[in-house]
C-alpha cells in the first residue's frame, strides 16, 4: 500500500515517517514511535485509554489517522514525570490510589493534564464532568476524583507531597 510522509512532534521530539494513510494514530504512537504508554481499549472512541494531547487538546488516538496528525504536536503520558520522578498529578494519583491495574491511567492523566492547564483550580464537580470522557473499570472513579482534587492542592502548594 502507498505511504505518505508525515512530520510530527511527539513529546518535543520531531519525527519524520512514511506511513500508510490508514494507520491509526494510536498504532503509530505505540508501534512506529515505540511509546507504549498510550493504551488501546476499544478502538471505538468509547473508553479513552488512548487519550493523548494533540496541539494541547485531549484527543482519542484510536479514532484518528496518523496522517491527520501531520504537522501537529502530540503529547503522551511519557511526557509527564518519569517513574522515579513523577510530576504532581502523577504523584497525587499515587497518593490517593487513583489507579489499580494502570491500563486506563495514561488516558486519565492526559485528560486531566488538559483540564488543569485550562483551569488550574477546578472544583470537584468540574473534575467529575470532565472524567465522564474516560472509562475506568477498577477504581469506581471516586479515588480518581480524589486524586485530581489532591493534585490541585499540590499545585497550589498548600500541602507538601506525602
Amino acid at each position, binding site marked *: 500500500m502507498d505511504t505518505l510522509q508525515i512530520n510530527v512532534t511527539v513529546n518535543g521530539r520531531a519525527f519524520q515517517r512514511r506511513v500508510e494513510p490508514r494507520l491509526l494514530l494510536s498504532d503509530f504512537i505505540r508501534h512506529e514511535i515505540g511509546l507504549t504508554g498510550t493504551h488501546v*481499549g476499544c478502538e471505538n472512541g468509547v473508553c479513552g485509554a488512548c487519550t493523548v494531547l494533540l496541539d494541547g487538546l485531549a484527543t482519542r488516538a484510536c479514532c484518528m489517522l496518523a496522517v491527520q496528525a501531520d504537522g501537529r504536536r502530540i503529547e503522551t503520558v511519557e511526557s509527564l514525570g518519569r517513574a522515579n520522578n*513523577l510530576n504532581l498529578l502523577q504523584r497525587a494519583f499515587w497518593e490517593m*490510589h487513583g489507579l489499580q*491495574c494502570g491500563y486506563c491511567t495514561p488516558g486519565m492523566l492526559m485528560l486531566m493534564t488538559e483540564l488543569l492547564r485550562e483551569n488550574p483550580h477546578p472544583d470537584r464537580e468540574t473534575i467529575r464532568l470532565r472524567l465522564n470522557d474516560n472509562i475506568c473499570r477498577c477504581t469506581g472513579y471516586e479515588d480518581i476524583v480524589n486524586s485530581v482534587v489532591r493534585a490541585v492542592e499540590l499545585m497550589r502548594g498548600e500541602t507538601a507531597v506525602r
Partner: protein
Amino acid sequence: MAEVGKIHSPPPGRQKERPDQRFSIIGTRMLRKEDPRFLAGRGRFIDDITLPNIAHAAALRSPHAHARIRSIDKSAAEALPGVVAVITGEEAARETGPLPCFANPPVEQRCIALGKVRHVGEPVALVIADSRYIAEDAIALINVVYEPLPAVSDMMEAINSRGDAVLHPERGPNNVAEHRNYLFGPVEQEFAGAAHVIKRRLRWSRSGGQPIETAGAVAAFDEGSGKFTIYVNGSMYNYIGFTIAAALKVPSHLVNIVPVDAGGSFGSKLFLHKVSVLAALGSRVAGRPVKYIEDRIDYITASDNHGSDRIYDVELALDASHRMTALRYKVVDDYGAYFQYGLGTHGNGFSQTVGPYKIRAVGAEIYAVFTNKCQQGACRGFGSEVTNFMIERVVDAAVEELGLDPMGFRRDNFIGPDEFPYQIPTGNLYDSGNYPGALDMALEMLDYKSWREKQQAARTQGRYVGIGVASCQEKGVFSATEFWMLNREPGFALTSSPESASVKIDPTGKAVISLHAPCWGNSPETVATMVLAEQLAMDPADISVAYSDTDHGLPGTGPGGSRYTVMVTGAITGAASIIKEKLKRVAGHMLEAGPHDLEFRSGKVGVKGAPGLEVAIAEVAMQAH
C-alpha cells in the same frame, strides 16, 4: 451426613500467625509499589511485548449463532501480499487437540471451530500476516459457506432441544450439559414440617468482565528445541498451564508461559487457553513469533468468560416462630456453548449456601444447559454473589409475605457469635463471625433509624423511598478444585488449591520475592513486600518483586475468586519462616547465642533483651553466602 451447627471439637487449625497481632508495617499506609511504572506509562502489558520478525494474527469470526461450516475458500486471502498463513479449523485440528475443559466428560471446544460454529464470534479461521492491518484485510477475503442451524437462545427451551438444535449431540439428545440434585440434610422432612413455605422465581442475568484491556498472547515456537514460549495476560498458568501443552499436543516441559501485567480481569482472564493456543499454533505454522490480541468485539462476543445466567425457583421453609429451617431450589444455568469449568461456578455458592443463617438443610437441583452464546467462565469472585442474591431475595419475600421486620427476622435467624465454629449443611466450617455486630455497624453507618423516619415523612408527601437491606456471607478465598469436584466422577480427591512464593536474600541483604502468579490489577507487589518486611523487620525499599514463568514457577493458583491476597500472604509467611530459621542459625553462630534467644529488629538479627548485640541481615547473608 455432616453435623450442622456449632462444632465442639473442630479440626486443628494450621494457623501460624495469631489474629489481632500488632504490626509495624502491615496495616500502615504504604504507597503502592506497582504504581510508578503504571503512572509513567511503563507497564508491560501484552500488546507491549514484541519479538524480532513478529507476525500478527486476526480471527475470522462466525456471524451465525449456530451453523454448519460447509466450505471455506481461503485462496484469495492467501494470495494477498503480506499474508503468511490462513488456518482453518480442519488444519488447526491436525496441529492441536481440544481446548482444556474441566467438566467430566469434557465438552469439545476447538481453538478454531471444527465443522460447526456454536456462537456468534467463534473463530472460523486465523490469518497470520506481516501486520494486523493486512491480517484483517485477508479476513474479508475468506469465503465461508454456512448452513444455519436452529439457534438456541432460551435456557428453558434448551432443556428440551432436539435434532439440529442440539449443540453437542455426542453428549446426549438434548442441550442439558449436566443435571445434578444435591441434598444436604433432611430437606424433605423440614419442608413437610414447615409452618410456612415462601416461594419465588428469581432471575440473575448474564454479564461479562470487560476489563479495558482485552485478552491476548504473543507466542514464539523455537524449532531447535521444539519449545513454545507464550506471553499471555491470563492467570493460573502455574496451576493448570500444563493443559495448554496438551492442547498443543506437546509435553508440558516444551511450553513456557510468561506472565505480563494484565490491564484488569474481573475474572475474565482467569485462564486464557484460547488466545494462548491460537498464538502458539500460529507461530508453529508461520515459523515466526505471532501476536494475537482480541479486539473489543472479539472480546465481547467470544471471551469464553461470561458470568452466571440463571433462573431460580426457590423455596424457603420456616417454622411457626419464623425460624428458617430449610432452603430448596431448582436452578437452570445457561452456560452458553461450552462448559470449560463444569458446574464450578456453583462451588463458591455451596461453600456458603446458607449465608449467615441457621438453615439446617439445603436442596439444590441444578440444570446446566447449552445455548448458542459465548460460554461462561469466571466473573468477579464468581458464584457467591448469585447465591447471596438468591438467599436475600427469598428472605425479603418472607419479610413481605409474613409482615416481618427485615432486621428482626434476619437477626432472629443469624448464626450467633457464640456458635462458631459452625458447620453448615454442605460441610463447610465457618470459623468465626459476628453477624449482629456487622449489621449494627452497617445500620449505624447508614443512620438507618433516621432514614426510616425520613421515609415515613416522605410517605406523607406522597413520595416513596425504598430502603433495602442485604446480609451476606462472603467467603475469604476460593479453591479452583470446584472446577472438577462437582463432576460425577471428579478424577481427583478433594484438596485445596496451592499458592506459592519464593524469597531469596542476596549476599548484600536485599530480598527478591518471586510470585508465581501475575500482576492482575490488584496489588500483589505491595502486599508481598509488606508481609515480608513485617516478617523480617526489613525496610520495604530493600525488597523487590518478580513474577515467575512456568519454567521456574511453583504451583500457584493466582488471583481469582477473590483469593490472592489471603493466599499469597500465607505463602510469603511460610517462606519467611524458613528464611528466619536459617538467618537465626547463622546469626546465632556469629553472636554466640542460641537461635531461640534471637529476634528480628529493623534490618538486624539481635539478642533479645540486649540492645546493640546484633548483626545486620546483610552481614548474615554475606556470611551464609
